[in-house]
């Protein structure tokens, strides 16, 4: 029997009538009113997600940059203080230990926000590779993280617009917060990091500003519509970044763990590719369903915006072109789907 951890907002979730489920060792809200209305709130207005289960690692010291350049796939030389980037922690095979966002706090100080389920493996991986002049610390328990996402999120929070993948200290209703211009929904928005003790006050302030509480259910359908990979589903230690379509995150002109293997895969061409698809027949694809001709679904759900089954999965490279018809085995029933260009959902230009 494992005890589930709770975020500082647990009592707020209970009071709102959330349905709580175990997720990566945490008891987390999967929905409040319902996945579909929460999903729509984020596409149309603004929603708030408690993502305090995510991990925060700090890497500090005169050689912090050197340590991270050697283990992260993206190029930290492109980051000035105040900027962030999506990147990967890769193993020797080019597999993905975690996908994360690296924030350059100061020239010699970085914050890494990692997946909840990979907090330990990512921390261990870095700790084992620490070099004199670099210090890796897990500071996850000190912070809470709220993602506020949607086209009206910035306005509702009373913040100014700012470029994506930047961050700055700011205030929301008198609460000092680190405002990160990042997210996992495909909408404009921010992720707000505060000391754990300020989490409840910040949550209350955000809700009072008319932002809709949203659970992990909507977070998953939102990210799937815009084809953001989910570690543990679409990517993992046994899937390489090139096949996963994350070559754009890999600075193959620098040296980092797994770079040789990734350069080789890129030169030879990946044998399988992670594609996005939309169902053309009834049925909802789910993780691990076989795809005819070799392949499997890695993420699948119902798209509230398209009102159809959608998913991502690995298929042989010659079946990865948009337009290719796929047949998915939906619990014994063959159902047609079609490969589409990513993202699956894109806001119509107004």
């Amino acid at each position, binding site marked *: 029997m494992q005890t589930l951890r709770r975020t500082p907002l647990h009592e707020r979730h209970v009071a709102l009538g959330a349905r709580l489920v175990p997720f990566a060792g945490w008891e987390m809200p*999967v*929905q409040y009113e*319902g*996945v*579909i209305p929460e999903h729509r709130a984020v596409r149309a207005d603004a929603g708030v997600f408690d993502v305090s289960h995510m991990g925060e690692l700090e890497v500090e010291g005169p050689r912090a940059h050197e340590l991270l350049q050697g283990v992260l796939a993206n190029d930290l030389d492109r980051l000035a203080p105040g900027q962030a980037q999506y990147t990967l922690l890769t193993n020797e095979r080019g597999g993905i230990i975690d996908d994360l966002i690296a924030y350059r706090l100061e020239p010699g100080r970085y914050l890494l926000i990692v997946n909840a389920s990979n907090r330990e493996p990512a921390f261990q991986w870095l700790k084992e590779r620490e070099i004199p002049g670099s210090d890796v610390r897990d500071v996850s328990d000190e912070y809470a993280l709220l993602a506020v996402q949607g086209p009206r999120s910035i306005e509702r929070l009373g913040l100014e617009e700012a470029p994506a993948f930047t961050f700055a200290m700011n205030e929301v209703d008198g609460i000092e917060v680190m405002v990160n211009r990042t997210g996992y929904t495909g909408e404009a928005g921010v992720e707000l990091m505060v000391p754990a003790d300020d989490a409840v006050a910040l949550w209350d302030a955000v809700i009072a500003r008319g932002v809709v509480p949203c659970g992990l*259910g909507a977070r998953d*359908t939102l990210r799937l519509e815009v084809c953001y990979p989910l570690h543990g589903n679409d990517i993992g230690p046994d899937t390489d970044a090139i096949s996963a379509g994350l070559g754009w995150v890999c600075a193959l002109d620098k040296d980092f763990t797994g770079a040789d293997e990734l350069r080789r895969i890129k030169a030879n061409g990946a044998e399988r590719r992670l594609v996005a698809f939309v169902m053309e027949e*009834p*049925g*909802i694809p*789910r993780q691990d369903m076989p795809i005819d001709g070799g392949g499997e679904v890695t993420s699948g*759900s*119902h798209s*509230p915006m398209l009102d159809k*089954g959608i998913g991502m999965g690995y298929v042989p490279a010659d079946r990865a072109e948009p337009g290719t018809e796929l047949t998915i085995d939906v*619990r014994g*029933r063959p159902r047609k789907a079609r490969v589409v260009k990513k993202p699956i959902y894109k806001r119509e230009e107004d």
Partner: protein
Amino acid sequence: MAAAESYPDDLRYHREHDWARIEDGEAVLGITWYAQDALGELVHYEAPDDGGRVSKDGVYGEVESVKAVSDVISPLSGEVIEVNAKVVESPETVNEDPYGEGWLVRIRLSDASEADGLMDAEAYKAFLAEQ
């Protein structure tokens, strides 16, 4: 809008959270308020074929929400004489009206005495209270 919790007195209930409305050698089947609430908003109904056979305690279809899929269990045996096309088209009808517009199939009963083994509303409510 989701319906309010209720378990009508004129229905018979199966422990897998299915109901039957029995009349004149036929039965209309569906899932209970408890079942639709546990699943959340339905987005797919995989219906049986017209004319197909269903057997008591057997699976005759699937209902699916964003997060979960569930088999639908038949409380009685018989032959499918009608599938609710409205639910195939708009599965959320089940959430809105689980005992009315949200019925799933109509069957012609092959053994009307099977109904004796089902729960009435009071027994089903007592069964739910133990869950």
